[in-house]
C-alpha cells in the first residue's frame, strides 16, 4: 500500500475543485459561478468545500464588486498546487503499484 495521500483533497468535490484551480495559470483565478459549472456542485456545497480548502491554505478567495454585483474569485495557492500534485502522484503510484497502470 502506498501512503502519503491528502485526506483533505481526496474528498471527491474538493478533488474536482483543486483539479480546476490547479489548471489555472499562476496569475489566474476562477469565478464562483464558473467553478460551480466545472465541478457540477450546488452553491452551498461548493461554498462549504471552498471554505475548507481556504482554511487549509490551499486556495485563496477574493471577494470583489463588478458593476455593484459581488463576485467571488478563487485561485490556487503555491501550497495548494504542491499538495494537489503530490496527491495526484500518490493516486498514480497506487495504480502503478497495483499493476493496473
Amino acid at each position, binding site marked *: 500500500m502506498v501512503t502519503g*495521500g491528502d485526506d483533505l483533497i481526496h474528498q471527491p468535490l474538493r*478533488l474536482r475543485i483543486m*483539479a480546476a484551480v490547479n489548471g489555472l495559470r499562476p496569475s*489566474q483565478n476562477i469565478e464562483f459561478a464558473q467553478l460551480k*459549472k466545472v465541478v457540477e456542485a450546488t452553491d452551498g456545497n461548493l461554498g462549504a468545500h471552498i471554505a475548507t480548502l481556504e482554511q487549509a491554505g490551499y486556495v485563496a478567495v477574493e471577494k470583489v464588486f463588478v458593476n455593484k454585483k459581488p463576485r467571488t474569485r478563487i485561485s490556487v495557492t503555491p501550497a495548494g498546487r504542491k499538495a494537489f500534485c503530490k*496527491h*495526484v502522484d*500518490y493516486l498514480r503510484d*497506487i*495504480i502503478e503499484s497495483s499493476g493496473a497502470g
Partner: protein
Amino acid sequence: METSASSVSAQQAADALLDVRRAQHRLSILRGYEYGAPHFLVWGCVWAIGYASTALWPGYAGVIWLVLDALGLLGGLLIVRATPTDGTRSAKSWRFLAAGAAITAFIAATYYIMAPNSGPQFGAFPALVMALIYVLVGIWRGPRWAVVGLAVGGLTVVGYGLFHEYFMLWMAALGGGSLLLTGFWMRAA
C-alpha cells in the same frame, strides 16, 4: 461516506484521476468559450456589415473586405491584449496575428488558383473555410464551436443553392447573425 486517502484501492484511485481529468476538460472548454465569445461578436459585426455592403456596392467588394478584415483583426488583437494573462500576452498576440495571416493567405491563394466566377462564390468560400475551422476546433474544444461551424457551413450552402440572387444579404443576416448569437451563447456558458 468519505474514503480516507490512506486506504484507497487502485479502482478508487483510477476513478479519482478520471474525475480530475474531467474537471480539467470542463474548465478548458468553458475557458475556450469565454475567450471565443468576444471574437464571435466582433466577426459577427464584420460579416453583417461586410456582406450587406457587398450586396449594395459589389464593385467595391475588395476594398470593403480589406478594410473590414483589417478592423476585425485589430479588434481581435485588442481583445487578446485585454484578456488577463500570465505574461504571455505578446506570444498570444503574435499567434493571433499569425493565424489571421495564415487564413487570409490560404483564401487568397485559393482565389488565385481557382478564381471564383461569381460574387456568391467569392463570398461563400471564406465562410466555408471558417465553418470548417470552427468544426475542427469543436472536435477538441467543445460542442458549441462545432455547432456554429455546422450552422454557418449549412447556411452558406443553403443560401448559395436556394437564394443565389440574394446570397450576400442572406449571409449578412444569417451568417453574421449566427456569429453574433454564438458570441452571446458562448458568453453565457
